[in-house]
């Protein structure tokens, strides 16, 4: 492996070689906080509120997502729908995520882990609102 040659003295044992080596699925799933721009984090969360992912929750989602640098995509796993941009309100409305649907939130970038965590908390809390 060429990783040893990269000469980064701050490389820690837990760090995963990047760019030349795809981050294994099981490591992404645990959303290890990689500290480079390629860091990824994935979480699956269930829509709990009765009204589902309607306009207001979408706006809240966008609001939280836009506080982070990373890119984020969201997919409705239950409906096997397309991946949409988690920072686009218009695209998020395509998810048609009703109560009980599972969303797969996937972030990529320097703050991916924190972003996915914040978004997961938002969804799991029922978007901090009734209905």
């Amino acid at each position, binding site marked *: 492996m060429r990783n040893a040659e990269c000469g980064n003295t701050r490389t820690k044992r837990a760090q995963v070689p990047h760019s030349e080596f795809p981050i294994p699925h099981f490591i992404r799933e645990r959303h290890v906080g990689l500290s480079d721009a390629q860091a990824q984090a994935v979480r699956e969360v269930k829509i709990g509120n*009765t*009204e*589902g*992912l*309607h*306009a*207001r929750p979408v*706006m809240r989602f*966008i609001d939280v997502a836009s506080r982070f640098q990373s890119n984020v995509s969201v997919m409705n796993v239950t409906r096997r729908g397309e991946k949409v941009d988690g920072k686009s*309100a*218009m*695209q998020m*409305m*395509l*998810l*048609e*995520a*009703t*109560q009980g649907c599972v969303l797969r939130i996937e972030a990529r970038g320097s703050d991916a882990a924190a972003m996915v965590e914040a978004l997961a908390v938002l969804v799991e809390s029922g978007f901090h609102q009734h209905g």
Partner: protein
Amino acid sequence: MRLSDLIHGPSIVAELQATDRNGVIRELVQSLADHGAVPPESVETVARSAIARENQGSTGFGKGVAVPHVKHECLKKMTATIGRSSHGVDFAALDRAPVYTVVMLMSPANAPEEHLAAMERIFRYLQRENFRRFLRQADSREAIIELLSEADDSQTE
């Protein structure tokens, strides 16, 4: 779901008279009532409810479109209409830009699946830049209806 089935054609307002957000909402609800899509006695309730909803968070999704909506028990059947403003209306949109196309959706209470399916359909179309542009240029009810039906036909799903 075809958008031309969802949108109540006779209620389309090709040139909105109102120039502010609340006025636009009232005008569209009134138009739906005038054409029998919303019970006339519910106009005030529904309009208030749509405005209250808007105050909780703008439905101006950006790119010149807003989708104000209401879920209310006095609505027995889902219906929707479109209003077009050539001057642009301030909806406190996400991108702060004026709104030229308003799609107003009215859903019965306790039908969240149907509501989300209609929203999906509306945004599926509004996603397309051409659709937004042509909608903004369509200056008569007939032109808007024709555009909706052409968009439905070109939808492969």
